[in-house]
């Protein structure tokens, strides 16, 4: 979407044009959903949060600073809405060895590429408190201090939740690697494919040489 088109849509939304609101909603649907889905337990909740977020976008559109990218503004609103949504049950804290949290995930991870659906499925299986902290720390890049103030929890809780989140995710990743899934299957296929191609190539070269 071009910048001019976006500005036109925003102007229309400011006039409460339902058509323009729908266009804007459609344009940022995928982006907003990708954020909300990370924080949500499932797609139901994600769309509920996303709609709450869009409601904020539409009602606070006059506050949007046009000098900044609109998509970032929308993204921040979606993230804040998600955090607000779960704020009430984020106080889950565990007294674990917090220093160990930093070590998790450094090693033992299989070198594999997991697709989006696998990853999002894993994140969604985390309890709300762990998921929120993991999102804010690992993906958004906030520090524990920032997270603690944002979620109104202690930095200890933030660290502890991150630790538990990593632990659970690591297990999920390792388990997914062990399962004879499509990933390893496709790897085998490529090996077989490369093998057949090289064999046929050599046969071809031999034929030419003859």
């Amino acid at each position, binding site marked *: 979407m071009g910048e001019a088109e976006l500005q036109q849509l925003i102007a229309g939304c400011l006039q409460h044009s339902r058509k323009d609101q729908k266009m804007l*909603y459609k344009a940022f*649907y*995928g982006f907003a959903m990708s954020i909300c889905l990370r924080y949500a337990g499932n797609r139901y909740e994600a769309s509920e949060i996303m709609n709450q977020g869009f409601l904020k976008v539409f009602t606070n559109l006059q506050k949007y600073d046009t000098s900044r990218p609109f998509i970032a503004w929308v993204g921040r609103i979606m993230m804040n809405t998600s955090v607000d949504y779960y704020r009430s049950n984020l106080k889950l804290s565990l007294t674990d060895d917090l220093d160990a949290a930093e070590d998790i995930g450094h090693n033992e991870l299989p070198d594999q590429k997991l697709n989006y659906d696998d990853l999002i499925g894993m994140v969604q*299986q985390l309890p709300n408190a762990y998921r929120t902290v993991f999102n804010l720390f690992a993906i958004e890049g906030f520090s524990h201090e920032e997270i603690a103030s944002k979620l109104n929890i202690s930095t200890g809780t933030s660290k502890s939740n991150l630790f538990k989140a990593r632990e659970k995710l690591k297990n999920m990743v390792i388990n997914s690697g062990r399962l004879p899934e499509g990933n390893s299957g496709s790897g085998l296929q490529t090996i077989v494919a490369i093998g057949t191609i090289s064999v046929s190539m050599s046969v071809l070269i031999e034929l030419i040489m003859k």
Partner: protein
Amino acid sequence: MKEKNENKLDQLFKDGLSGPGDHFAFREEDWDSMEQLLDKKSNKKAGFFRIMYYASGIAALLLLALGLYFYSKNDTVDPAKMHGKVNKKGNSQKHPGSPDRGNGNDSLGNKTDDLAVTAPAGQSNTVKSAKKDSINNKAESMAVNNSANNNQDSKVKASPGSDLNNKATNMAVNDALPNNNAPKTGTINNATPGSNAPQLADNKTPSANKVPGGQTTGIDTPDNSGKVAPATNQVENNIAANQNTDTTANKKAEREAKKQMAIIKASAIKNRPQFSITVLAASDANAVNSFGHSQTGTNYGLQLSLRVTKKLTISTGVAYAIKPYSSTPTSYSADSYNPSRTPTNIQANCKVLDVPLNLSYQLFSKGNNAIGVGTGVSSYFMLKENYRFDYAAETGWKPYNLEVRNKNTHLFGVLNVNVNYQRRINSKFSAVLQPYMKLPLTGIGNGKVDLKSTGVALGINWNIGSALKP
């Protein structure tokens, strides 16, 4: 604190999840709920009030239309009925005084009664009263006249107590006196209307009076009155006795006439459409498919009824119902949300605005009690639906809550069947007991479930009367 690439796991997820948001195709139903949010924002509670407004508007219009329809229908039929009744009324009113015409006196039953009461003051009055009195009394006085010599006053006094006795004594006395034949038939003819007329046969009375009027009464009356006059003149003690019987007989006649007038009035009112308001509270069992796993809900409602005929009543209104129920995933037809995740159980709680349109037929009515059966359709306006989806323990998924507001309406989507018992408390109020059943004709709510309800409603019915008085 955290440096880039410090944690492989974090990096894995960051890279995997923060790509462009092209994993999600736009879904129209998300926009639908977005629109609802936007609408709600502009007027938060407008949704509920709008539904209430429409519902009450529809209900009022329906009732008004039905009322007018039946009223105009009744109006065309009524005049003939009413006319007949007025005539009847006239007859029944005039009847006790009908012999007065012969004396050129148009006074009503009440007047003759008054006169009879004041009668002892003067002789002329007593004569008048005796003349004015029903033929029955004349017959009695005649009997008194005839038996005066034998001092049978006491017997005569006692005789009005029962009609049969009266007749019998009259007959006996007449038989004992072979004066002429005309008085005999006269007494028999007169005895019948005189004693029974105000009580039972109104229609028969005038005809009975009229038909023999030409033949016998014409001769009879002067004959009797001629006899009454000398009788009263002669035996004053007997007259006093007669007056007693007169007043009691008159009072009786008057009472009967009044009662009849009341009945006529009542029947006239009954034929006009009558409105009543019922306030109902109910507790019911809600279940999907079968009532095996039902849950208890509550209903509060206001119902406006229109009684179109003596037996038929049309009613409509609004009821706020809270319907909790649990459903299996097979009964709950989920839309495109996460089809791969099938919950083990769905727990629902719906706030529903129920707008019924029912027709009820009175089967039985005796004294203060009335029993009727009714049927009709209800429209459900789903104000708020809450669903909790529970997943199997081994999946580790926590229950998911879904809330749907003002999204689903089911116009005439529910069949109502009820039995109602009414007990009158007074002329305006009656208590209502109504066992009912609500059977869906269409899938109810977000999950299109087959939500049945059965319960008992209790309430008070206020009879406003005819709001369309001419």
